């Protein structure tokens, strides 16, 4: 016995019936008419939708070889619990994240050895110059922020990051609408045509970074992106000389969700950008799946400075490879009020004067 298939109206969800007069499927509720073949394709596309599949292989990093960790020290911050690693030639006195004193708690051992490192391209002098430029011309900035002594405390830190590669397959279904207007002498007409828009395809993502340290704010790390992996080299402890390195305390498995979100958002944008020629469109269903998902462990260079003001902590960061500088600045309320009333008085005076010329 053949299977009975019922079709739902894409416009109103009612049960469609075949209209022998027009030889098409017709909805008795909204009177929309559909070509049988188009309806079948649309129904098949809706029926084959699956849940997203984002699977990763997260074994990243490697084992330290004998003697590689010799001379490396760990410093622990009693305030925030941060653990900083340095080589034997570098001493750490303050925590780069909370600016409190750190104490050397022992020699470094265990943990994963990073796969890659991007060495610092900008030195401390360049970092201080970038910070001064960031603060320049900020009319609402409190004066204490420009204190040169404090700016000198900027520190170079290697931040642990997980890098994710994946091949992404996506299957998206959109409903597109085209609107046409015209008029004769008696009526204004509006014609709305609806289309089933299907897009399937592949895209590859490489080296999507996710911050592996709870001490480093994710927003701050993402704000100084992108990092160019062309400058990355195989990790050696020699690169740590003169700088601090943070230990990872967020595992690759815990970082996956953030990587998934970013990859999914961009995939949806890329596929939506292929839908053209419509007045408007919206996504009906979508399925994104990953294959060959791999994670790597690397250290990325960041210049960091912490400042406190009125009980709030402000962190500035500079990409140690590209020089991009970010950091939210506090607003001096009294300066803001002065500028507000100054500008208001000036504009009021000009407009008032002009009103005599005009009227």
């Amino acid at each position: 016995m053949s299977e009975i298939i019922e079709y739902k109206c894409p416009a109103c969800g009612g049960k469609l019936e075949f209209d022998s007069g027009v030889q098409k499927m017709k909805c008795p509720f909204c009177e929309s008419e559909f070509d049988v073949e188009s309806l079948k394709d649309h129904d098949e596309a809706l029926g084959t939708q699956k849940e997203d599949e984002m699977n990763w292989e997260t074994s990243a990093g490697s084992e330290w070889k004998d003697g590689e960790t010799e001379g490396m020290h760990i410093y622990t911050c009693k305030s925030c619990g941060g653990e900083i690693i340095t080589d034997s030639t570098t001493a750490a006195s303050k925590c780069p994240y909370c600016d409190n004193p750190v104490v050397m708690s022992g020699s470094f051992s265990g943990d994963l050895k990073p796969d890659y490192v991007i060495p610092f391209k900008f030195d401390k002098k360049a970092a201080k110059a970038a910070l001064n430029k960031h603060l320049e011309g900020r009319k609402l900035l409190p004066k204490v922020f420009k204190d040169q002594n404090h700016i000198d405390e900027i520190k170079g830190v290697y931040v642990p990051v997980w890098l994710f590669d994946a091949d992404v397959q996506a299957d998206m279904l959109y409903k597109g609408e085209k609107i046409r207007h015209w008029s004769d002498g008696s009526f204004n007409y509006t014609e709305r045509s609806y289309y089933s828009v299907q897009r399937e395809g592949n895209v590859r993502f490489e080296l999507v970074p996710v911050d592996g340290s709870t001490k480093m704010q994710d927003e701050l790390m993402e704000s100084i992106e992108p990092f160019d992996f062309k400058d990355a080299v195989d990790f050696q402890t020699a690169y740590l000389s003169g700088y601090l390195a943070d230990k990872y305390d967020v595992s690759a498995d815990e970082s996956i969700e953030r990587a998934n979100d970013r990859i999914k958002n961009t995939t949806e944008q890329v596929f939506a950008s292929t839908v053209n020629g419509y007045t408007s469109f919206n996504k009906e269903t979508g399925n994104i799946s990953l294959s060959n998902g791999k994670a790597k462990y690397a250290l990325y260079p960041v210049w960091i400075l912490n400042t406190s003001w009125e009980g709030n902590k402000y962190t500035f960061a500079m990409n140690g490879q590209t020089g991009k500088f970010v950091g939210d600045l506090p607003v001096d309320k009294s300066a803001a009020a002065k500028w507000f009333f100054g500008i208001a008085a000036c504009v009021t005076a000009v407009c008032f004067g002009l009103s005599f010329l005009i009227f």
Partner: protein
Amino acid sequence: MSLKRITASAVCVMAFWGVFGVKSSFTAGSAQMLTAYADEYDFDYVDEYDYEEEPDIDGSEIDDIELDEIDSDADISVNENRGTKRKHNVISSFVVSLLIGLISALIAVSIMKSSMKSVRKKAGAADYRKENSFKLTKNTDTFMYKRVEKIAIPKNNQPNK
């Protein structure tokens, strides 16, 4: 330019325009006592002036003016209303100017405040999409259905005079 200078300049300009405004009101008020208003006269339309002929100003034009049509006690209350109306405009101009000033200041300070924020979370991973890796394996647009709405254009039924 420092904030103090901007504020001082604004106060001076406002004071200047304030004095100018008051002076103008006074001048308008006194001027109306010396100016004759022609509202009470009916003038006939005169053809284009013929420059070839020398005008006879001693003649008919003056005769045409009937002296009893000139009402020396013409009602000038309309003109007084004009003076009162002018004062009212100064105040409303100031209020409108103040509103524009406050809104402009609010916009300017908001822009300054927003420039103080530079830390933002990244929504996607567009920087890490491998170049030329995007390939579409299915790309179909299928017409489903259409709807036509029609709205009658209202007609003006008033008959022409």
